[in-house]
């Protein structure tokens, strides 16, 4: 038996050219990367075709349509009420605000009045939706930066408490299908308001600990400050709405501008940013949670009794007169609008969703150019998109 005693020859590795003052042979070569559609940082089936020079983004084209099911065409072949459960699936984080936007547009189209009690229930459910959306988005943003688990799970723990409230009110955690034209579907279960009061009372304590954990974190500051800057004029021209617009310092909140529902009765402020970078967007969302808590505390004091739906509103064989209407609300992601044209038949002739997530992506390339790929991921995370709404 012979045993090899020689030591193995050293392997001949190919020498990678190193960058020298004269430059290397790899300089100037651009790399095309398709980020997504199956990429955890794109929050769903969304693709960014990125062209990189080294690590710097020189071109970025968003590609949509992976979740497209032509929601608008389906709604044009369904009765007005039949589309209500389908609006839940647009932005599946915030089904109650989607319901409200659609109900508001139909109420404008048909001239329906909403009873006082229903208006209060709408405000309470919409602000609870905003609470859980903003806390989760901050968690997702931290997740994109590598804070795996902890912040997101803390946010989800609080979100689950709010979803329990939705479940006892509507029967579903996320697909609520709760609002109707001229009111709401069912009255509050006994003791529900007390449960909301408890959660709203406990929330500031959670928020304090969340902010103490994260706001001054060195990695968070380094990864967000000065990243994904959006100039104010571009934001207005590109139709950016919601917390992203207010982070650029534009004072525009549809709750204050349109006074839809009963928002003119509550006292709350509009937090505004200065730099328009990712850190401002993150902070604006946390500050908006505090303002939502203020609205909730005021609304919970004085929920009146009475009917929850306009007795004149018809659910079956509902045929609005010929005409059109555009109704919009301040959703957690931005301006959510519905544009309806009626030709007097039971189905809408034209049904259009104005999706805030899609339009906020218009300036994604402008925000990412000249940054590194890792910052592009953070910038996308700060836009807060839900692909059910982007692709419809």
């Amino acid at each position, binding site marked *: 038996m012979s045993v090899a005693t020689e030591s193995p020859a050293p392997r001949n590795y190919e020498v990678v050219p190193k960058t020298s003052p004269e430059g290397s042979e790899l300089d100037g070569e651009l790399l095309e990367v398709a980020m997504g559609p199956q990429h955890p940082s794109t929050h769903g089936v969304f693709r960014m075709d990125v062209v990189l020079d080294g690590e710097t983004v020189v071109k970025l084209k968003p590609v949509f349509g992976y979740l*497209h099911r*032509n929601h*608008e065409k389906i709604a044009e072949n369904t009765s007005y009420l039949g589309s209500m459960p389908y609006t839940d699936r647009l932005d599946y984080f915030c089904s109650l605000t989607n319901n409200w936007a659609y109900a508001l547009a139909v109420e*404008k189209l048909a001239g329906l009045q909403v009873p006082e009690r229903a208006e209060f229930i709408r405000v309470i459910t919409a602000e609870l939706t905003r609470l859980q959306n903003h806390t989760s988005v901050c968690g997702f943003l931290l997740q994109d930066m590598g804070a795996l688990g902890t912040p997101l799970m803390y946010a989800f723990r609080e979100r689950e408490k709010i979803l329990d409230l939705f479940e006892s009110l509507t029967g579903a955690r996320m697909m609520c299908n709760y609002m109707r034209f001229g009111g709401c579907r069912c009255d509050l279960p006994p003791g529900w308001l007390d449960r909301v009061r408890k959660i709203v009372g406990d929330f500031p304590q959670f928020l304090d600990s969340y902010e103490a954990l994260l706001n001054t974190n060195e990695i968070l500051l380094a990864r967000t400050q000065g990243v994904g800057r959006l100039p104010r004029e571009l934001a207005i*021209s590109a139709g950016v709405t919601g917390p992203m617009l207010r982070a650029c310092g534009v004072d525009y909140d549809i709750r204050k501008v349109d006074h839809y529902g009963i928002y003119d009765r509550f006292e709350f402020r509009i937090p505004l940013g200065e730099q328009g970078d990712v850190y401002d967007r993150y902070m604006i969302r946390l500050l908006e949670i505090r303002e939502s808590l203020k609205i909730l505390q005021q609304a919970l004091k004085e929920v009146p009794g009475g009917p929850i739906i306009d007795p004149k509103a018809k659910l079956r064989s509902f045929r609005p*007169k*010929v005409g059109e209407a*555009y109704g919009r609300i301040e959703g957690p992601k931005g301006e959510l609008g519905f544009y309806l044209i009626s030709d007097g038949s039971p189905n809408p002739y034209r049904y259009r969703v*104005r999706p805030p997530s899609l339009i906020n992506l*218009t300036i994604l390339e402008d925000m990412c150019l000249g940054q590194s790929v890792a910052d592009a991921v953070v910038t996308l995370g700060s836009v807060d998109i839900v692909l059910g709404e982007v692709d419809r």
Partner: protein
Amino acid sequence: MESLEQIKIRLEAAVPGAKLEILPNESPSGQHSLLLDNAHAVALARFLRDDAQLRFDYCSNMTGVDWPDTEITSKVKVKKVIDGVEKEVDEVTKTARPGFLEGVYHLYSMAMKHGPLILRLRTGNRKDQVQLPSFTPVWRSCEFQEREVYDLFGVVFDGHPDLRRILMWDEFRDHPMRKDYSEPDDYEYEPTPHDDVLEKSKRHQAAKGTL
């Protein structure tokens, strides 16, 4: 905000030769719209954006509407002499309206906090004159929304910087949001078709001549 009539008068003064029309909306929303002529549309849009009193700096919503060829029936009461007696008779007139595609824009002002002002543009027909001027150079928010209208309705926007399909894939042929759209024959073989699938398979086989 100024009334729609005032805006119309000021627009006609600012852009000579522009033809404008107010389209009334009978629904309780009362959102009437302004029909622009395509030749002067971009100049009118720029005036609306830059005018110190209007300042519509924010184009919130842009969408398309498909209006196929229809017959409009209108009843007019006409006095007629029948058998020597004057009577009021309903006279039904039918007028054929050629179809067109429409672009609808909802404008708001973030600076002045007013709105909406609704603009409409109409194409010549639905087949070969489907061009509309693009408002993307005026309001950047139209970029993706005009691409969507191009994709789903087939309106071609002149002056759009990057007019490609956005939701459907590039090889797709038709425009799904048109009222006369019929879905393509994408039947795949199934061993035991039933109900809707059976109907679909029959149609597919009839089209191929293998039934």
